[in-house]
Structures are given as C-alpha cells and as structure tokens.
C-alpha cells in the first residue's frame, strides 16, 4: 500500500453489497423450488407472445407457487398499452 492510498478515501462498499444481496436473495428464494426448465419456458412464452403483440421481456413472468402439496405454475402476461385490451 502506498502512502497516497492512506489519504485517498474510497466510498464505502458495504451498501452496494447489501443492495445486491437483497435483490439476489429475492430471486433465489422465489426460484428455490422452481424446476430447471423455467428460464427456457419463459423464453418460449415470450417468443409466442411476440407473435401477437408488442411486448417487452419484463411483462411476462413465470413462477412456481406452492400451495400445500400442489405446485402451481403462475404465468402473468401484462398486455401492452393499458386497459381495455388496448393495442
């Protein structure tokens, strides 16, 4: 370490670590029981949707929900352009 480094103040990095962890963990916790094919399924669904509408990737979500001893696949597709089937 050079003498200069002693006086050069770097911004604290812990807040960044904290934020990254919170985001990552939200993802991992939700995906813990998700089957391996979820990312591929998501991609395929997007491709199909895009045949019929202009939609951005984040408007299609796929996740697995556990209810008692039943696993349900929840697919949410938010139509573009607001309410009343707007186009």
């Amino acid at each position: 370490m050079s003498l200069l480094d002693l006086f050069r103040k770097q911004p604290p990095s812990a807040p960044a670590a904290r934020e990254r962890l919170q985001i990552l963990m939200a993802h991992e916790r939700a995906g813990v029981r998700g089957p391996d094919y979820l990312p591929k399924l998501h991609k395929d669904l997007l491709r199909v949707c895009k045949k019929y509408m202009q939609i951005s990737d984040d408007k299609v979500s796929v996740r697995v929900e556990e209810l008692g001893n039943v696993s349900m696949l929840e697919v949410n597709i938010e139509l573009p352009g607001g309410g009343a089937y707007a186009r």
Partner: protein
Amino acid sequence: MSKIIVMTSGKGGVGKTTSAASFAAGLALKGHKTVVVDFDVGLRNLDLVMGCERRVVFDFINVINGDARLKQALIRDKRVENLWILPTSQTRDKNALTKPGVERVLGALRQEFDFIICDSPAGIEKGALMALYFSDEAVIVTNPEISSVRDSDRILGVLASRSRRAELEMEPVKEHLLLTRYDLGRVETGEMLTVDDVMEILAIPLLGVVPESQSVLRASNLGSPVILDSASQPGQAYADAVGRFLGDSLEHRFLTAERRGIFQRLLRRSA
C-alpha cells in the same frame, strides 16, 4: 431431552469448527453433558482445534461400519468436565457416512448426552446434508461478507426443505444466526456489512457476534477452544452466545470499536 445442534454455513472457512468447539465447551462448562461430532469426513480438523489429535484411535466411521464401539471412539476432554469428542476419519470415501449409520450413532449418543453438536463440512451437498439432516436446532455461522450471507440463505432453504424435520413435517429446525469474524474496524468504515444488514437479509434470531481476533488463531495453535480464553473477546462472545442459547437474556457486546487514535489507525492500515 437431548438436542442435536448443527453448526452449518454453506460457505467454507467461516468459523464452523471454531464455533462448534467453543459452543460444545461452553455447554459443558454450564454442566450439560455434551459431545461434539466431526462430520467433515476427509478433512477432519475438530480434533486439532480441540487439542486431542494424538488421542484418536477409532472414529465416527469406524463406529458406523461396526469396526469399533461408540465408547471406544469417544474422547473425553482433559480440561472440561462433561465434554466429549467424536472425531471423524481421514478417509477419502465421501459415502462413508450413510443415513442409517448416522442415525444409529446419533440415536446412541442421544441416550448419553444432553447436547450433540455436529460440525458440518462446507457446501450444500451430501456431507453438509448429512450433518444437518437429524438436527433439532441449527446455528448458521456467517461472516459479514456477501458470499457468506448468500450461502447462509441457501443453507436455510435446505434446512427448511430437506432436513428430517421438514420431511416428516415436524416442527421446523430452530435457526440461530452466529455472526463471526466481525471486523469492527472495517464495519465502521463501511467496507463490511453490519450486523443489522445481515439480520435484515437473513431474518433469523441473532445468537451472537464474534469479533475477528488474533486470539482465535492462538487458541487453535494451542489446541484449546477459544471460549476457554475468557480474557479474549471471542471467548466472551462465545460464552454469551451459549448463555443466550440456554435462555439468558444478555446484551450483545463488541458491536462498536473502541476509539483508536489516528496513530494507531495508520499503523493498523499499513500492517
């Protein structure tokens, strides 16, 4: 009623073995008959930290395989009454620990001991799974560092889904957070996650915070659990953690650094 407690973390090198040794010694010092069991097959270290490496004749695997009786493998600690060690073997065969074998040995230990402390290997694979599978309570050993926190979260997921208690839909394994290698200086300069950050992310009750300290290395050099060094900060922190585990309400210590002069700070940073 005897209790099985696993020291687990996912990530390696965070202080599981150090904590298992001190925790077991602490419970024994409080008068509870305690055994600490090494589940880290192939990388056995607990005997070194406990200072009984030269007294190992038979081990956990020998007992599972029926080559030795449990009584022959258990080592009685020379310093602390009520404290015993069950060492593991240096075998490279990771399949040496079988579920029925482990269950049988733990069952026998339950007849004799109040507390059975399981020192888990790193990872979330078979070895770690075997160490946590039969546990009643889990101490999640975590460092204030991003990858350790993430791995702790994953091991919490494993406890909640793949432990025996989860599989049999019993009351879930009780979870405790033990934050170790807490470097106050670096926490205060914003380089390391704070205890509040970690607690907020993992959301499990805090058992204790063990500061980073040279006395841990010294204790393992001497083969004596750091809790026996009651003048040291880690020794006191582990004693507090054991007290809390047994139901005492003790305030957390060592959460703020003593003020250092600028001269000491410079010395420290260039060290």
